[in-house]
Structure formats: C-alpha cells, structure tokens
C-alpha cells in the first residue's frame, strides 16, 4: 500500500489521493491542491523548482497528519508534496481528508497546509519570465526545546 505521506518527483494524481481516503462512514471529503501559478508579488513566473530534505520531509509530513487526526478527530488523511521542476498549472501539493462531518474536515485540511508551510523542509526557486531565478523567501521553522517544530 502506498504511504499516506509522500514526497515525490512524479506528477500528483488527485483522484488517486481522493480514492485513498474514501470510506463508507465518511460523509465529507476535502481535497486541497496547491498549484504553480503564473505570478508572484507582481513577477511573471515561468516555473518553480522544488527541493526537499527528502529523508526528513516524509517523516515531518506524517507527523503533521497524525497531529491533524488527533486535534480534529478525523479518520483519513493523505498528503503528497512534489519536488523537482514544475510548470505553471502543475500541482505541487495535495491534501485529502475524509471525515464523518464537514467542520473537522475543513479544520484538518487547513491545519495540514498551514503546518506544511511553516515546517516541512521544502524550498522553491522561481524561474521568472526575464530568465532570472530566485529562492522564494520562506518561513523560519519554530523549534521548541523538546524537539519537533
């Protein structure tokens, strides 16, 4: 069985992720997709390269899913982050959640993407239309004394 927390160089297939969280007892399903867009802060973007600390990122993503389950009591989550060269319109991250009720499905989905943004060891470099490229300014992970972010 495919792991529910993945870092991949392959194109993300949202339909497969959705199928993975399906369950007859779950009435609400939410799929969140992050998509490479053609602009950022007024610059025309041609594509993005995502790099990850692969060996750590998979574990961190799994941790985030476990936290979302525990906080919101949702049963089924799956998430995948793509790395490598991505073009405009390609999916960089996908999160699928299913739950008996919609409120916690929304909360869990939101939690996962917010945590990804502040602690998943992934970086991106934008390629602009003028031929230049630049690492996107990110978020400094907050590290607590007990370990973990």
């Amino acid at each position, binding site marked *: 069985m495919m792991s529910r927390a993945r870092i991949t160089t392959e194109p993300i297939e949202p339909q497969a992720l959705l199928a993975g969280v399906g369950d007859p007892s779950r009435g609400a399903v939410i799929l969140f997709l*992050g998509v490479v867009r053609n602009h950022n802060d007024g610059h025309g973007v041609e594509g993005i390269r*995502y*790099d*990850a*600390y692969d*060996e*750590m*990122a998979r*574990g961190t993503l799994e941790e985030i899913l476990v936290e979302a389950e525990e906080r919101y009591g949702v049963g089924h989550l799956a998430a995948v*982050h793509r790395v490598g060269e991505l073009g405009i319109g390609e999916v*960089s*991250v996908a999160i699928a959640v299913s739950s008996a009720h919609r409120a916690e499905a929304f909360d869990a989905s939101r939690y996962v*993407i917010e945590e*990804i*943004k*502040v*602690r*998943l*060891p*992934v*970086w*991106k*470099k934008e390629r602009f239309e003028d031929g230049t490229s630049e*690492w*996107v*300014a*990110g*978020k*400094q*992970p907050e*590290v*607590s*004394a007990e*370990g*973990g*972010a």
Partner: protein
Amino acid sequence: MKVRALFFASYREIMGGAEFDVDLPDGATVSDLITLLRGRSDAASVLPSDPAVAVNRSYRTSDALLADGDEVAVIPPVAGG
C-alpha cells in the same frame, strides 16, 4: 567526534556544497557547529548565526548537544506548499 552537516537550497549555494563532514570536540552543541561552519569561508559567514537545525531529521534548538555520527541539517526558511 565527527558529524555530517547537510545544506539545502540557498544555504547549499552559500556553502558551495550539499554536505560536509565536520570534526567537533566532545560536548559540542548545534550552536558550536554553526559557529564553526560560518568561519569556513567569507561566503559561509552569510549563514545566519541561529538558523533552524534538524539533528537526525528532527528539529532541535541551538543548545542541543551533538553526538558522533549525527546528521545535522541546516534548514533555510521553508517554502513548501
């Protein structure tokens, strides 16, 4: 003792490499390693003095003690999603 320091994204460009083996005295902390790394070259001095760091794939504070064989990743501000 010896640890392996890993660099990613902009820090990899600053350091001119993805990983280095670094010799440290026993009792050295994450902070000691960063000080040593920043002194490696003029370019390396651009590294922040208190970056996020993961030891063996978990985030750790700058006062965390290191041990022989640790994998210490210096983590630039993250930008996933």
